């Protein structure tokens, strides 16, 4: 049985201009110990998906519905707010993009770690501090003991993200969601953080949802990838499959616009033309149609249904792309 099961997740926001369908029917499974990548441009709905799973979407003005959304057997959608608070931080955890802004500037990092331990594991005092030091060691913060009394602004960007990881993993969650966790960091630090996450989650058997717009990062880390566009998953498959046989116009576009270190230097990057989709009044056809370079006649006639392209690899595309 998969650890996380999401069926037909829809998250809508009421705005002055109408209802924004940020997530418009997302379904996927996440196995235990699996690292799933969630890729897409800004506004594709990846972050909102994560927030919906974490039950962090403010309702109003948001509204989260799904046919099913279960974590390890627990129906996440049916939880009351108080119950959701029990689950958050202990069984599922999330780290965010900018660690400087995601850590409270007036609290010591020791405090920001121990409060989670206190809240979910009832650890207090010296025991909590010991555990906090252990966690900081695990994520590679030197002189952990001394650093407990330090404030976030006294750390470097990479260190802060390590602290965030320590906080997230402190109660051994089954699910870790990382939302653009390395986007704000230097490239070399990015690599370190990715390696850290890979190692720690493999060790603990934690499942990971890694959200990014950066295909390169995803390629180095994830087992499977979901490509999202306009609030839906347009393609999903094992990492190798996806990179060797992109089967959706959007995925193709993403590949084409991603610089590659090993590629021929004369290849031109092909950006994806056009504007982001309208999430209030979606067209009844494929949402990517206005910007797609490989669309066929059928695309103008009917919306695409998911098609199988290989083991565990499907895409909602009517075009037949490549070999």
């Amino acid at each position, binding site marked *: 049985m998969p650890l996380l099961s999401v069926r037909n997740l829809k998250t809508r926001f009421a705005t002055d201009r109408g209802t924004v369908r940020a997530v418009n029917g997302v379904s996927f499974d996440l196995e235990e110990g699996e690292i799933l990548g969630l890729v897409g441009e800004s506004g594709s709905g990846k972050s909102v998906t994560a927030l919906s799973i*974490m039950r*962090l979407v403010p309702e109003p003005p948001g509204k989260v519905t799904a046919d099913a959304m279960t974590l390890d057997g627990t129906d996440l959608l049916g939880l009351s707010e108080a119950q*959701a*608070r*029990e*689950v*958050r*931080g*202990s069984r599922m*955890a*999330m780290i*965010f993009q*900018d660690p400087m*802004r*995601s*850590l*409270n*500037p*007036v*609290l010591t990092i020791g405090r920001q770690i121990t*409060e*989670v331990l206190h*809240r*979910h594991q009832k650890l207090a005092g010296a025991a909590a501090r010991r555990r906090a030091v252990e966690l900081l060691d695990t994520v590679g913060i030197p002189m952990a003991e001394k650093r407990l009394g330090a*404030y976030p*602004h006294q750390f470097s960007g990479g260190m802060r993200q390590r602290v*965030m990881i320590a*906080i997230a993993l402190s109660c051994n969650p089954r699910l870790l969601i990382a939302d653009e966790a390395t986007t704000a960091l230097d490239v070399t630090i990015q690599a370190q953080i990715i390696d850290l996450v890979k190692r720690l989650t493999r060790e603990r058997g934690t499942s990971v949802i890694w959200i990014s717009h950066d295909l390169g990062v995803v390629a180095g880390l994830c087992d499977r990838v979901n490509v999202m566009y306009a609030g839906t998953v347009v393609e999903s498959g094992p990492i190798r499959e996806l990179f060797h046989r992109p089967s959706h116009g959007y995925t193709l576009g993403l590949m084409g616009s991603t610089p590659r270190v090993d590629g021929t230097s004369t290849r031109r990057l092909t950006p994806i033309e056009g504007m982001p989709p309208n999430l209030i009044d979606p067209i009844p056809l494929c949402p990517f149609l206005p910007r797609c370079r490989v669309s066929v006649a059928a695309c103008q006639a009917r919306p695409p249904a998911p098609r199988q392209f290989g083991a565990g690899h499907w895409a909602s595309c009517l075009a037949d792309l490549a070999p």
Partner: protein
Amino acid sequence: MMWRYLGRRLIQVPLVLVVVSLMTFLITRATPGDPVQIMLGMQTSPEAAAAMRAEFNLDRSLPEQYGLWIAKVVTGDLGRSIRLNDRVTALLAERFPVSLQLAAAAMAFALFVSIPLGVIAALRRNSWIDYLCTGYTVLGFAVPNFGLALILIYVFSIKLDWLPITGIGSSEAAAGGWWTYIRPFIVPAVALGTLQTAMLTRLLRSSMIDVLSQDYMRTARAKGLLPATIVIVHALKNAMIPFITMVAVQFGYMIGIQVTIEYIFAVPGMGSAVLNAVVTRDFPVIQGFTLVISAFFLFANIVADMLYALLDPRIRY
């Protein structure tokens, strides 16, 4: 590092105070008419007038008078009151604590109302509490404190007869229990503190709204912390920083604007002392008291800056 900043600020204090003292001096000396005549009244013998002139150095040139006064001030001697035949410093010792208590009472009221109102209004934006809060602050800014005082007196003292309007610092009040002592403070404190309440509520509300939209609040929620923890430990601690510094500044400022309230409620404080001194042309009192009030305000400002540095770990001078 902080001590260096503190040192720099403290150095500026005497400079500003010199200018203030100069201003007060010039204002008092700008009064038309012969000061001695004014002070002693019409029927006065030439000898008495001459003696007074000598005592108050009024026969010297203006710069000399100023210099002499300042020299005395530096040694802590603010002179003698002309009318009340007492040392200015002694008068200060009587009056300053009373003003301080009134200011403290007003500030206590302000905190009592503004903290819960500001926090709740920020948490429940666009709810009836938020509109109540906005309405209250708008009115609080608009009503002049002496107008409010009259309204409160009318309602609470005259019509309802719940609260007295005089008696602050009186001996009967001091003799009775703490409630008898506090009772006469209530109406004046509310009248004086309403403007501060409006200001502080607005500040805390906008500060909280700003803090609540920060990323670290999302992290706190993602950790599954209890709502009380999130609001008090994570949000309030940040939002309080500008709030507390504003409280310090406003407290220092209040002493200067209390005068109408002191006038209405016959409070024997600094403001009413200066008022009387102006009417009776009691220059030493005017000069000495305004100097002290200004110094207090400066001091409050420095305290506010220090508090800011203390509360916000990102700031280290």
